[in-house]
């Protein structure tokens, strides 16, 4: 719905993710949700919804215990 | 160089310094405090060296572990109860293949025991002592000179084979004052062991560890350690003999007991008894082959030790039934005299109908 290009983008390594959902809890823009597809370890990983709201604040990466998130900004 | 009169404990310290010992970590316990104090006075003054009176014997052995990890010649010392405390640390050193020198000036046990000389830590020293399958080289000096020589040798053996080495003395050897000559000067620069962990500069990072979640890995490590132990047994077994060539009965004794036994052997020889003395110097590796070979000619052995019968088992294992083995032991820190041992030998000799030269 926003016309402005997204300021940020993240990439979640779905095989590293253990579905702790902390990134989801702390994301200030609600751009992360739980996938409905299991990963190879049997977790439902987090998935990034690239709808233009991400600011690249990197809070998700900061809290991710698995270092599963890379963040892009700019 | 000239001989100096020193007590055993101090001689160990001087020898260690001359062997390039960089770190000493210890804790006071009778009867080895002269060693700790010697290191406090002399090691701490040497550039690059460290002396710490640690908060416990446990802490001290773990400090030795750390110093050894980074390639330093490190030692600790204690007496029986304190050596018990160090056993976990020694097991870790052995598992990680780290050199270290551990001096035990043993005293009477078990428990708090007595402060007098005893030899009741033989099992503890030669069977690993801590948990798991491992061995440490065990050197048993019999004089102040040997305390010095074997302390130096301990550092060399530890580095050569990446193994903890125990110098097993006792409270009497530690207190005795005898002339001692040092074959080496203290080194100008301290060596750093080649495989030391010194930070991952210009190479991949390394790990010194023992834990594995895969038993098969641990099995491999165990077999590897024991191949090395076999090599050490082939190369480093050491012993001394006195008048064994024509002996009908051989006394087997180590350390201070061997000093006493030597006097007894001289006495009984003067009375025409053909008695000899076999003195293991490495208690591990034990000179099993020597004992077994001597059973071709000698059918009677008397094991004399200041304990309830520990080396006795190694003698019996070595002989595999090829000869009679008698035992005389005095535990608790009681020091028998040469004449007492001479009486024991004499009784045994006659009771077995052995040949007497008149």
């Amino acid at each position, binding site marked *: 719905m926003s016309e402005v290009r997204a300021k*940020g*983008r993240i990439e979640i390594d779905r095989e590293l993710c*253990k*579905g*702790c*959902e*902390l990134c989801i*809890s*702390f994301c200030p823009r609600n751009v992360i949700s739980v996938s409905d597809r299991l990963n190879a370890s049997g*977790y439902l990983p987090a998935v990034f919804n690239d709808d233009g709201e991400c600011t*690249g604040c*990197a809070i998700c*990466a*900061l*809290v991710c*215990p*698995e*270092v599963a*998130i*890379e*963040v*892009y*900004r*700019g | 160089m000239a001989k100096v009169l020193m007590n055993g404990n101090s001689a160990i310290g001087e020898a260690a310094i001359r062997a390039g010992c*960089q*770190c000493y970590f210890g804790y006071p316990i009778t009867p080895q405090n002269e060693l700790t104090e010697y290191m406090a006075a002399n090691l701490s003054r040497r550039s690059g060296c*460290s002396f*710490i009176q*640690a*908060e*416990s014997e*446990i*802490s001290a052995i*773990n*400090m030795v*572990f*750390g*110093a*050894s*990890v*980074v*390639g*330093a010649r490190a030692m600790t010392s204690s007496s029986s109860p304190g050596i018990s405390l160090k056993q976990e*640390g020694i097991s*870790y050193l052995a598992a*990680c293949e780290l050199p270290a020198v551990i001096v035990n000036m043993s005293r009477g046990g078990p428990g708090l025991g007595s402060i007098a000389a005893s030899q009741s830590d033989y099992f503890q020293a030669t069977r690993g002592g801590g948990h798991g399958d491992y061995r440490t080289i065990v050197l048993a000096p019999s004089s102040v000179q040997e305390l010095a020589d074997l302390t130096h040798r301990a550092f060399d053996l530890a580095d050569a084979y990446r193994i903890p080495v125990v110098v097993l003395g006792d409270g009497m050897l530690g207190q005795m004052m005898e002339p001692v000559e040092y074959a080496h000067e203290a080194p100008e620069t301290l060596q750093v062991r080649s495989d*030391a*962990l*010194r*930070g*991952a*500069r*210009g190479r991949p*990072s*390394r*790990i*010194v*560890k*023992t*834990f594995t979640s895969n038993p098969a890995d641990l099995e491999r490590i165990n077999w590897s350690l024991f191949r090395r132990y076999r090599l050490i047994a082939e190369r480093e077994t050491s012993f001394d003999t006195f008048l064994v060539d024509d002996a009908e009965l051989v006394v087997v004794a180590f350390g201070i007991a061997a000093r006493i036994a030597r006097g007894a052997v001289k006495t009984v020889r003067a009375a025409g008894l053909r008695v000899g003395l076999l003195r293991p110097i490495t208690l591990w590796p034990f000179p099993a082959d020597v004992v077994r070979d001597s059973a071709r000619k000698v059918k009677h052995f008397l094991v004399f030790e200041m304990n309830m019968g520990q080396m006795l088992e190694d003698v019996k294992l070595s002989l595999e039934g090829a000869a009679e083995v008698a035992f005389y032991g005095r535990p608790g820190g009681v020091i028998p005299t040469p004449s007492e041992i001479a009486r024991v030998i004499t009784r045994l000799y006659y009771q077995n109908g052995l040949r007497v030269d008149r």
Partner: protein
Amino acid sequence: MRKVYTRPALLKRAVFHYCPGCGHSIVHRLIAEVLAEMKLGDRAIGIPPPGCSVFAYDYLDVDMAESAHGRGAAVATGIKRAYPEAVVFTYQGDGDLAAIGTAETIHAANRGENITAIFINNAVYGMTGGQMAPTTLSQQTTTTTPYGRDTRLEGYPVRMSEIVAMVKGAAYVERVAVNSPANIRKTKRAIRKAFQTQLDGLGFALVEILSPCPTNWKMTPLESWQWVDKVMAVEFPLGVIKDVTGGEGAA
């Protein structure tokens, strides 16, 4: 767009064996970042404990040496005395540092050993299955306090940082947590300061980190992160407990 966050160079590419939501891997990551930023990676020697983090050496790409349980401060002392150029740090759990390792910790601090101690406090013994730790809270249920910790029989939660701070050789002691973005940033600053204390030769540095253990607390990751604030931090107040370094504070 440019990449603004990626795996730190000193963290090996390995899947963490820790439970979802565990604080260990966050602290590992912060240590890796700090060591790289301070260019200490090739001088660092880390000492992991027995415990969940025994495998820290599989993650941190620096030289590491195992220690017997509780003896990290003694091993670190031996390393630092024998090779002062090393930047040595222990990484210890609550049992390791505050139960079996109490003597080693207090005395290393007392001697002012120039080492850095990273102390992970999760109020429970994790790897062995959730038994009481010295830092277990009053009435907290663990497998060895199945009816809740009774302080009359089992003593009180130990405030190890405050105890260590009392010895003169301790130069910098701070308690932080890794249960929120703000706290994670503070933890990183505290870790950096703890290494700086060592570099400056000022004495013993201890960073106590309140860390969530969802599995043994029997909570979801988010619940456990909240429990750190709501319950743990009440008993173990966050903040600088001692700082004689004269440098900038972490908070």
